[in-house]
C-alpha cells in the first residue's frame, strides 16, 4: 500500500518539524509553531476537500461554507456565558446557557456540518461536471448571506470575537492525524475504490452495480465533518473572524493547495499545503523589502484601509468599537508604516489629535456619488468590508512586528476601549 506509506512519511515529517520547532529560540519558535498550526488546519481542510473534489470527481466550491459554519457554530458554543451576554445578547436562552469545551464544540461543529451536508448534498450530488461546481458555489454564497444576516447568532458582518484561543499545535496536529487516519482507512477501502470508480466513469460504475448518489453523498458528508471540525480549529486559532474570511479568497487558496499537491492523492494534498504555506511565507518576507534595481520596494510596504463615516454604519452603537480599532490601527501604523486612508474628517482629526500621534498621509475623500442605481446594483455592505480590512491590517502589522525577521518591536497592544471590551484586532492573529 504505497499510498499509505507515502502519507505516513509526510505526516511524520510534519510531526518531527513540530517537535523540532519547540527547541528553536523563543521568537522563532513562536513564529514557526504558528505556521505549523495553520498548516495542520489547512491540511485537514484540503484533505477533506479532496475527498469529494479529487476522489469522487464532484468538484465542490462550497467546502469553505462548511468551514465557516463550523467556525461559527463552535464559536457560539464555546464562548463563555458572560461573553455571550455582552456580544450576543439576542441569543435564544437555550444556547446562551450552553458552554461547551473546545473538544466537544469542535465535534458538535463537525456534526452540524454533517447534517447540513446531507441536506444540501442529497439534491446537489445528482448534478455533475461544472453544474455541481456552480451549485456548490451557490451554497457558499447562501452560507455567507445567512452568516451576515443572522445577527443574533453571528454579530452579522461585524467581527465575531472573544472565541477562546485554544487551538495549539498539538491540538491541530492531533486533529490532522485523526482526519488522515480515518480518511486513509476509507480511501484505501472498497468504499474508496467505489468513489474513484464513480470519478473515472460514472456509467461504467453504475454498470457494475455502484449506486452513484450515495457514493458521492458519502464523500461529500464525510468531507463536511472534517471541514466543520477544521473550521472550529481555525476559529479557535484566530479568536476573532468575520463572514468575509470564509468566502472566495479562502476557497481559492484551499483549491490552489489541493491542485498544486495533486487532487487525487492524500499525500499530494498534504504536500500541496506545505508547499503553498512555505511559498507564501517566503514571499511575505520578500514583500517586506527588496530591491530589484528597477523595481524596488522598501520596508514601508504600504497598506491602505478605508474608514467610512461612522454615522453611515447601520449600527450606530458600534462607533466606539470602530474608533478603538482606528486607534489600534494607527498605533501599529506608526511602527509598520501603514498608510491609513480615512474618509471622514472628524475621525481623522480625532486621530491626529490623539496623544500627538503623527499620521504622515491622510486623505480625506469625498463620499462616493450615490446614484439611484447604486443600491439596485448590489453594492451594499462596503462599510463591513472596511472593518474587515482594518482587522487585516492590524493583523499584518502585528505579524510583521512579532514574527517577522529583524523588525522593530511593537508597543504594548491597544488597551480595551471605553466599554471595557477588548478591541478585536490585538487578539486576532495573522491569517494563513
Amino acid at each position, binding site marked *: 500500500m504505497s499510498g499509505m506509506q507515502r502519507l505516513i512519511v509526510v505526516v511524520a515529517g510534519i510531526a518531527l518539524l513540530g517537535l523540532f520547532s519547540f527547541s528553536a529560540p523563543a521568537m522563532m519558535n513562536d513564529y514557526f509553531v504558528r505556521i505549523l498550526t495553520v498548516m495542520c488546519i489547512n491540511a485537514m481542510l484540503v484533505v477533506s476537500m479532496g475527498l469529494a473534489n479529487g476522489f469522487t470527481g464532484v468538484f465542490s466550491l462550497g467546502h469553505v461554507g462548511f468551514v465557516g459554519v463550523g467556525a461559527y457554530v463552535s464559536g457560539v458554543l464555546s464562548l463563555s456565558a458572560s461573553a455571550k451576554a455582552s456580544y450576543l445578547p439576542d441569543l435564544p436562552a437555550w444556547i446562551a446557557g450552553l458552554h461547551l469545551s473546545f473538544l466537544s464544540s469542535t465535534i458538535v461543529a463537525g456534526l452540524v456540518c454533517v447534517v447540513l451536508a446531507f441536506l444540501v448534498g442529497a439534491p446537489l450530488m445528482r448534478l455533475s461536471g461544472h453544474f455541481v461546481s456552480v451549485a456548490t458555489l451557490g451554497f457558499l454564497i447562501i452560507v455567507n448571506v445567512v452568516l451576515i444576516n443572522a445577527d443574533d447568532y453571528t454579530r452579522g458582518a461585524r467581527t465575531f470575537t472573544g472565541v477562546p484561543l485554544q487551538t495549539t499545535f498539538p491540538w491541530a496536529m492531533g486533529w490532522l492525524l485523526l482526519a488522515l487516519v480515518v480518511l486513509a482507512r476509507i480511501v484505501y477501502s472498497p468504499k474508496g475504490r467505489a468513489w474513484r470508480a464513480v470519478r473515472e466513469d460514472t456509467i461504467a460504475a453504475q454498470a457494475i452495480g455502484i449506486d452513484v448518489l450515495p457514493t458521492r453523498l458519502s464523500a461529500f458528508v464525510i468531507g463536511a465533518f472534517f471541514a466543520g471540525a477544521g473550521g472550529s480549529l481555525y476559529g479557535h486559532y484566530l479568536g476573532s473572524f468575520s463572514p468575509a474570511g470564509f468566502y472566495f479568497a479562502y476557497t481559492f487558496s484551499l483549491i490552489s493547495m489541493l491542485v498544486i499537491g495533486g487532487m487525487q492523492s492524500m499525500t499530494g494534498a498534504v504536500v500541496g499545503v506545505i508547499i503553498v504555506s512555505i511559498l507564501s511565507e517566503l514571499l511575505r518576507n520578500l514583500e517586506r523589502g527588496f530591491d530589484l534595481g528597477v523595481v524596488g520596494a522598501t520596508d514601508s510596504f504600504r497598506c491602505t484601509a478605508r474608514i467610512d463615516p461612522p454615522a453611515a454604519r447601520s449600527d450606530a452603537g458600534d462607533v466606539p468599537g470602530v474608533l478603538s480599532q482606528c486607534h489600534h490601527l494607527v498605533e501599529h501604523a506608526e511602527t509598520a508604516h501603514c498608510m491609513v486612508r480615512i474618509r471622514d474628517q472628524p475621525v481623522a482629526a480625532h486621530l491626529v489629535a490623539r496623544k500627538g500621534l503623527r499620521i504622515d498621509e491622510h486623505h480625506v475623500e469625498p463620499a*462616493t456619488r450615490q446614484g*439611484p442605481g447604486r443600491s*439596485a446594483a448590489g453594492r451594499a455592505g462596503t462599510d463591513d468590508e472596511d472593518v474587515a480590512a482594518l482587522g487585516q491590517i492590524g493583523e499584518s502589522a502585528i505579524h510583521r512586528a512579532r514574527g517577522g525577521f529583524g523588525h522593530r518591536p511593537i508597543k504594548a497592544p491597544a488597551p480595551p476601549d471605553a466599554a471595557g471590551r477588548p478591541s478585536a484586532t490585538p487578539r486576532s492573529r495573522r491569517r494563513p
Partner: protein
Amino acid sequence: MSTELYIAQQIINAVSLGSLYALVAIGLSMIFGILRMTNFAHGDMMMVGAFGTLVLQFMNLGFGWAVMGGIGIGALAGVLVERVAYRPVRGAPEVTLLLTSLAVTYILENLGILIFTSSAQNFPLPEWMDSAFQLFDGQITFTQINLMTVALTAVALGALGWFVTRTDIGLGMRAAAEDMGAANLVGLDVNRLIVVAFAIASGFAGLAGILWAAQAGVVEPHMGFTPLLKAFVAAIIGGFGSIAGALIGGYLLGALEVFIVAFLPSEISPYRDAIVFILLIGFLLFRPNGLLKRSQEVKL
C-alpha cells in the same frame, strides 16, 4: 406616492439592472456554448474594461472614445486570456478548464490590485451624463446612465443578433456551439471562431463593466465578481449556452432582484442573494436546460 408609479419606478430599475446582467450573461453563455467551459474570468473583463476607460480618460481622451477604447481593451484581454490560458488546456476535463479560469480570475484581480490598489477609484463622468430625469413630481426618477444602459444594451444586442444570423462567422459560431467536431470537419476554422467569440463576449463584459462603474460611481479590482455570479444564475435560468436564454434570464433576474428588495418585507430582503442562488439550485435540479433550451440526450 401612488402604487402604480412606485411599480413603474421599480420596473425602470429592473430593466436597467437586467440589461447589465444580460450583457454579462450573454458572453458567459456564448463561451459555454462553444467551449463547454464555465469562464470565471469573464467577470474580470468588466473590471478590465472599466479600468481601461478610466485610464483612457486620464489620458484626456473624450468620454465616448474612452468608452469605446475600454470595450476594445476588454475584448483584447479576453482574446489574450483565451490564447495564453485556455487554448493550451482545450479539450481537457471540465474541471481543468474551470480551475484554469479561476486561476485567471485570481491573477487578473491581483494584477488590478497591484496597479490600482484595492481601494475603489472614482469613475469620472462627463457633466451631461450625470443628470437625472424626474417625472410626476419626482415620483419617478431615472438617470442619464439608466437610459444609456438600456440604449447601449439594445444596440449591442441588435448588433449581436445581426452578427450571429447574417454573417458567416456568426453562423459558424452557432455551428461550433452545436457540435465543435462537426464544425471542424466541414472546414470551419474553429480557432478563429473561438477568438471571435471571446472578443465579442469580453467586449460585452467590458461594456457592462463601464456601465456598472458609471452607475456605482467607482471602479475596483473586485467589481466583476458579484455580477459574474449573478450572470451565472441568469445564464442558467435561460439555458446555459443559449444567447436568447441568457438575455431573458438576465432581465428576469434583474426584475426578481429589484422586486425582492422593493416589495418583500425588510426582514427578508437582505436575503436577496440567498433567494437568487436557491433559485439557481432549483433550476439546476429541476430544469437544468433552463427555460429556453430543449433537453439534450447525453452522448456516450
